[in-house]
């Protein structure tokens, strides 16, 4: 009885320390940032590829919408997940955070424009939004390359 209680106590202590995550180092934070950037590149370029395929008349409207909406949802989640990570208390990490936040916001607004244009069937607006999203994707790829540990 006593032995079981002790095991439960240890497990509880372990769980509690896991919930309150220890402060990251700059390297750890940079890794979070690059992983987020990589996922964002994937989401952005999926939507761009889908749009380019649609421009060639090879994609159905339904499939395009599904892919664009999935990318939009993914980019949104990536942004909020990254924002919830506490950066270590130094200037480098804050700069990193500001830079990635900016890039993510560019991608998010581009994909929103793309989704709105796709729903409306507005080909011209879609092209513009896809171009903006492609640029944002490339910028995110550069960011990932630069800050790769």
């Amino acid at each position: 009885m006593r032995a079981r209680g002790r095991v439960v106590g240890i497990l509880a202590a372990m769980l509690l320390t896991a919930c309150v995550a220890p402060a990251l180092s700059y390297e750890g934070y940079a890794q979070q940032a690059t992983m987020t950037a990589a996922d964002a590149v994937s989401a952005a370029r999926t939507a761009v590829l889908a749009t380019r395929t649609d421009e060639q008349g090879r994609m159905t409207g339904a499939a395009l919408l599904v892919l664009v909406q999935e990318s939009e949802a993914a980019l949104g989640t990536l942004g909020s997940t990254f924002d919830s990570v506490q950066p270590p208390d130094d200037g480098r990490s804050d700069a990193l955070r500001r830079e990635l936040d900016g890039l993510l916001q560019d991608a998010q607004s581009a994909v929103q424009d793309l989704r709105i244009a796709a729903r409306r069937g507005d080909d011209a607006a879609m092209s513009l939004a896809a171009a903006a999203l492609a640029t944002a994707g490339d910028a995110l790829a550069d960011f990932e390359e630069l800050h790769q540990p």
Partner: protein
Amino acid sequence: MSRLFAVALGILTAIGGFVDIGDLVASGVVGSRFGLSLAWATILGIIGICVFAEMSGRVAAVTSRGTFDLVRERLGPRAGLLNLSASALVTLLTFAAELGGIALAIELATSVHYLLFVPTVGAAVWLIMWRVRFSVLENVFGLLGLALVVFAVALWQLGPDWGALLNEVVQPSLPSDEGYPVYFYYAIALFGAAMTPYEVFFFSSGGVEERWTPKDILTSRINVFVGFPLGGLLSLAIAACAAIVLMPQGIVVDSLAQVALPVVVAGGKLALAAAILGFVAATFGAALETGLSIGYSAAQYFGWQWGKYVRPYKAARFHAVVLLSTIAAVTIVLTTLDPIQVTEYSIVFSAVALPLTYLPILLIANDGEYMGEHVNGRVGNALGVTFLGIIMVASIAAIPLMIYTKAGQ
């Protein structure tokens, strides 16, 4: 002539029925992240399922008994119950993943949110398990699943450097941005996706449903040794398409729509339609198989009358279990857990449960009292024991790797 037709039908059904949501997702993800450097894991899984499907088919033909019937006899009620519980839970998770897959495929066709389809899809799956004859069920969805050949066609249309592709398969190397733990985690995932436990229960119970006798062993072997590898080639084609179109752009698959994207790029709207048809057929067929397998397993363990070869009122408990499983699987999907996540968990847990499934089959196929002259030969045993070793390694490493790599990140 009709014999030839039956054999051809069997092979085609096996090809089209091989792929399920686990293969679709695993191949897509791995192709987009690792190219073809994990093809060996898929190939290993294909050989493994061939070895054990042949054994379980032979056991069904000779004994006219289902797997779990024999498992309880051979291992006793306690071990048998442990086996049943673990297999049933994993198969239920797989059932939920397949239902999610059907809904996602319909979403891809209509752009309507997948959750809205789930109850209807669940009802349709159950209705077909309730009413439709076993052979019709098998053949229709198996043949429709052949639409997935579009991935092989797309691969050819994309005009890849075949030499380089083959080189990746034969001389696998780790991509620069991935580590060994993740590499082997996905190797286990691919293995679990190819060697799903339910396949064996379904195959052997199906043999009893179709009243196989030892004369059917040859047909069963042809289906397995020709059909399954060709079906497995479709898995490799899915991975190769993802490797050629998605990987250079840094696109990592995390949705079913992305798995189809290379096919659309290569072949346009018609190819997309074929891919969607293939997705629906593969996942629907697998949903029927997993749902029925849970019923088969429970009924065979407890000794209840089971099967679609009798009118439902004669197998009430069996059909009740199938109905309850369908409701449970639908409920799991309706919790809005990402179906792709559910799929990934189901294949990893399948890998963990593999020894529970395959060890008993190896034991029974080796038992002269059950099998008479059709007992395992030396080659069969050598293969069986080798794969059992591989399965044990995969099973033990699966959960630690999943935790260490945080499910493949």
